[in-house]
């Protein structure tokens, strides 16, 4: 076409793009080191599954399909763009193999035209969600429309170019069916017009791709470049594990920052997360805090951090090795509002949803770590819980000697007198002290006794695992508890632990290994499920009851245990198990996670637990009102939240039961524990 013009175009656009990317690269390098080059096979697998496979896209069906169409179209048309750039130099350039008369060329032409139309369809769907249906999770902005517009124009230009070229040369290729169809309209056009249209189509496509490329580093569409590395470098450790602050005491002595205070305290991978956010809003759509009108919206948290990061671009360019940016605190009323920070329930719904595996909970906890440990700026209500954990080993400050009060009359052995047992029953604080949860503890312990499982408890030697303290940013206190508990557990040479509390479960299983505590940790629903399967526990008494099961985040999303509780309930004759609309990995948090149990909700429209109770009541309300109804759960925190929720909604005729209690009644025919 015009080698000179094509060369100028390529040099200018690719040059500018290289300049932009170099700046972003430099900005990324202000992040702290984080090793992410292990398990390469696993990492490539993630790229195949989440990037090329678009595995999470269809969780939102139509926009997911639309994205898959556009994404696939991009992959297909990448070759086309290269060919067109080549044709800038040689009008018949076809990469030697892709000429219209060659077999590969024919296949490609068919594929390309098919995807041109599919991409247009995808763009139409995406525009529909922005302009007509106006999904709440999306923020309508000019950039999105510009990008969608560019994509659409590129597709149309491509086909127009083909049509004009075919008409002008008289060489029609039916296999380029889109261009061929369009060309039928052009037969009567004068050749000068055809030449103009051909050129316009050609240059529009060739140039728009390059302009598009140059918009990317400055927009949310940067994900087109960063998504694959972001998925590749994802955190491969268990979902429920937070990164420990290593050598925390030494850090304090050296006066180093604990947690994240300023933007360049984040790791380079966290900064890459920020680059990669596409503002699809799925995270906020499922966030319990956003849902109940709190200040936190994970999408906006990411955007706010990114906007701040980008304002530091110029400053970052001037840094030499080892230099840091001028410190600007991230947590402040202008940037990340404290209410945003403290509204998170650590439920991981956002992380389960993000198509490009961006993490949120670790960032929020890192920000909390700084304000909690270095500034003492945490919700004052948490002070009570911290103090209780530190002084009495439980957040409610019960005397430690009351830890075994639940076991009255049950003949529960303690490790100190019977260390030769198969399991350690890790009771946990709420199940030891909360009157309601104590009944669950009793039911579980007696079911284990009936099944002939040998177990013992730590009694007065057991202390809070530190889960809530850790998630409130008090890593000091958490590590203190972890060390003490691991010491105790190691003294008794504990191998297998069973617990009814998903928070203890997660911490013991995924976080204690970082401190040298390696145990096989089993949730009571898992062991009870096995005992029912093996026929050792026989749920023989009918229960005429309609029941819905509320998923605990720390059991479900954190540990992929969705089925054990359901299998137990389903094994009980008479129980009709119904699922709420928000269930399993989409189940909404009860509102207690992430230390929320020990504080009040941040300001908003509604408490999370009331909102969740409503969701669960909705499915029960839709059932015929002939049987009694119940909400089952498998976590003492959820139980507390839902029980309060039912009381507030004045729906106390709906029972709130732990799976173990339901099983106890089905096995024994009474609920006397």
């Amino acid at each position, binding site marked *: 076409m015009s080698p000179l013009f094509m060369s100028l175009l390529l040099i200018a656009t690719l040059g500018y793009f290289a300049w932009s990317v170099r700046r972003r690269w430099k900005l990324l390098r202000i992040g702290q080191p984080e090793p992410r080059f292990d398990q390469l096979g696993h990492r490539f697998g993630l790229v195949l599954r989440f990037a090329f496979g678009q595995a999470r896209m269809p969780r939102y069906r139509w926009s997911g399909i639309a994205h898959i169409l556009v994404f696939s179209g991009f992959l297909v048309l990448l070759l086309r763009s290269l060919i067109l750039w080549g044709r800038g130099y040689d009008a018949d350039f076809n990469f030697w193999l892709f000429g219209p008369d060659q077999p590969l060329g024919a296949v490609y032409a068919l594929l390309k035209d098919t995807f041109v139309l599919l991409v247009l369809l995808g763009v139409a769907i995406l525009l529909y969600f922005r302009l007509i249906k106006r999904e709440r999770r999306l923020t309508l902005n000019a950039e999105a429309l510009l990008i969608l517009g560019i994509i659409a124009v590129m597709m149309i230009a491509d086909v127009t170019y083909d049509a004009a070229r075919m008409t002008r040369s008289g060489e029609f290729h039916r296999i380029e069916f889109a261009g061929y169809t369009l060309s039928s309209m052009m037969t009567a056009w004068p050749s000068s017009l055809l030449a103009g249209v051909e050129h316009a189509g050609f240059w529009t496509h060739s140039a728009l791709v390059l302009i598009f490329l140059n918009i990317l580093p400055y927009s949310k569409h940067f994900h087109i470049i960063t998504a694959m590395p972001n998925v590749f470098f994802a955190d491969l450790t268990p979902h429920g594990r937070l990164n420990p602050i290593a050598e925390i005491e030494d850090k304090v002595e050296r006066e180093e920052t604990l947690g994240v205070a300023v933007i360049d305290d984040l790791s380079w991978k966290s900064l890459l997360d920020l680059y990669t956010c596409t503002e699809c809003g799925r995270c906020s759509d499922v966030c319990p805090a956003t849902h109940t009108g709190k200040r936190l919206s994970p999408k906006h948290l990411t955007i706010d951090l990114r906007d701040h990061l980008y304002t530091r671009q110029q400053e970052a360019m001037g840094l030499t090795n080892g230099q840091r940016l001028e410190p600007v605190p991230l947590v402040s009323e202008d940037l990340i509002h404290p209410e945003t920070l403290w509204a998170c329930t650590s439920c991981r719904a956002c992380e389960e949803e993000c198509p490009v595996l961006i993490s949120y909970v670790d960032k929020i906890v890192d920000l909390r770590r700084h304000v909690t440990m270095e500034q003492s700026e945490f919700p004052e209500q948490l002070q009570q819980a911290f103090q209780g954990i530190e002084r009495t080993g439980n957040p409610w400050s019960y005397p430690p000697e009351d830890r075994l009060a639940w076991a009255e009359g049950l003949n529960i052995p303690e490790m100190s007198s019977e260390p030769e047992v198969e399991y350690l029953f890790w009771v946990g604080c709420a199940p030891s002290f909360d009157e*309601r949860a104590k009944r669950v503890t009793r039911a579980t312990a007696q079911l284990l006794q009936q099944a002939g499982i040998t177990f013992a408890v730590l009694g007065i030697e057991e202390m809070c695992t530190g889960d809530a303290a850790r998630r409130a940013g008090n890593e000091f206190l958490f590590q203190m508890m972890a060390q003490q508990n691991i010491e105790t557990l190691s003294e008794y040479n504990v191998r297998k632990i069973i617990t009814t509390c998903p928070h203890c479960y997660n911490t013991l299983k995924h976080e204690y290994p970082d401190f040298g505590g390696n145990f096989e940790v089993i949730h009571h629903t898992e062991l009870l499920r096995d005992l029912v399967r093996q026929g050792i526990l026989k749920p023989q008494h009918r229960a005429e009851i309609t029941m819905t099961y509320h998923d605990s985040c720390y059991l479900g999303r954190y540990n992929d245990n969705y089925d054990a509780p359901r299998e137990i309930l389903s094994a009980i004759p008479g129980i009709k198990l119904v699922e709420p609309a928000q269930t399993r990995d989409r189940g909404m948090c009860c509102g207690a996670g992430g230390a929320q149990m020990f504080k009040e909700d941040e300001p908003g429209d509604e408490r999370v637990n009331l909102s969740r109770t409503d969701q669960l009541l909705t499915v029960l309300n839709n059932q015929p009102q002939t049987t009694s109804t119940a909400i089952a759960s498998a976590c003492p925190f959820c139980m507390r939240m839902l029980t*309060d929720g039912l009381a507030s909604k004045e729906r106390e005729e709906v029972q709130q039961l732990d799976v173990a209690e339901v099983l106890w009644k089905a096995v024994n025919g009474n609920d006397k524990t």
Partner: protein
Amino acid sequence: MSRILIFAEQRDGQIHPATSQLIAAAKTLDPSAERHLVVIGDDLDQTKATLAAHDVTRVLTIESPDLKRYHPRGYAQALTTAIEQVEPKLTLLPATFMGRDLAPRVAVRAKAALATDCTALRYEGEALIVERPAYMGKVIATVALATDRSSIVSIRPNTFAPDQPTGANAAIEPLDVTLELGSLQNTACESTSSGEKDLADADIVVSGGRSLKSEENFKILYELAHVLDAAVGASRAACDAGYQPHSQQVGLTGKTVTPRLYMAFGIDGAIQHLAGMRGSKCIVAINTKKEAPIFGVAQYGCVADLFVMAPLLTEEFKQVLAR
């Protein structure tokens, strides 16, 4: 003869009840020592006369418009001046909010040995030995104060029975102090109390839950509270429902109270609530639900309708207490 200086806390001319307890403490510790009172404030004519009626050597007064309300720096300078003047072996303060703030400031200025929030004190030879509860009373630390300097001790209120005024007429002596208040100013003092008894101070708390069903119905608890000179508390559910302001909430995320008597009306006793009142000396629970967890911590429980019980109790207490 050794001297003990006693800080007499007052606000708006009202002498804090801990003051007479400190006088008693001084008498118990060393009956032979001179007892000097110091009172700091403004416009204290009435106050110092009341103080002078106690069995003390003299009452020092430091008055200035700048000291009308508590000022950390001003009060510290004033009390330090008094210590320099009196040269006591021991200075006693109450471990109130004011005393807790003031004692360490003065200790540094006067280069004195300091022990705070003590529940017992005695001499063993020359050494002053005090006891301090720690870890929420789980352990008692016994501390010996250095003998080469004067001592400052703050004493937990209600540890000693109050000293009764003898009608004596101790000397009242004004003391001049040069104040350097710096940029710190006390410009306003707003009281958030509604005229009702404050939860944190109350000996008796009458508390209600969701079952009260309305703000209006809380009236029956206020009536009982008035008869008992009690404060009214509420569960989180009751506060959420708007029956009471959140400032009245008792629990882990509300106020922690440890009154002599806690009466829970229609409160089930979720663990979050129990965490805020479990330390009460005596808990009485009235609830229609027999299995309510509150009965697990209550010394006295009554499975009954609170709307019947509360008015009955109000009437009965009126009779018994003749109020």
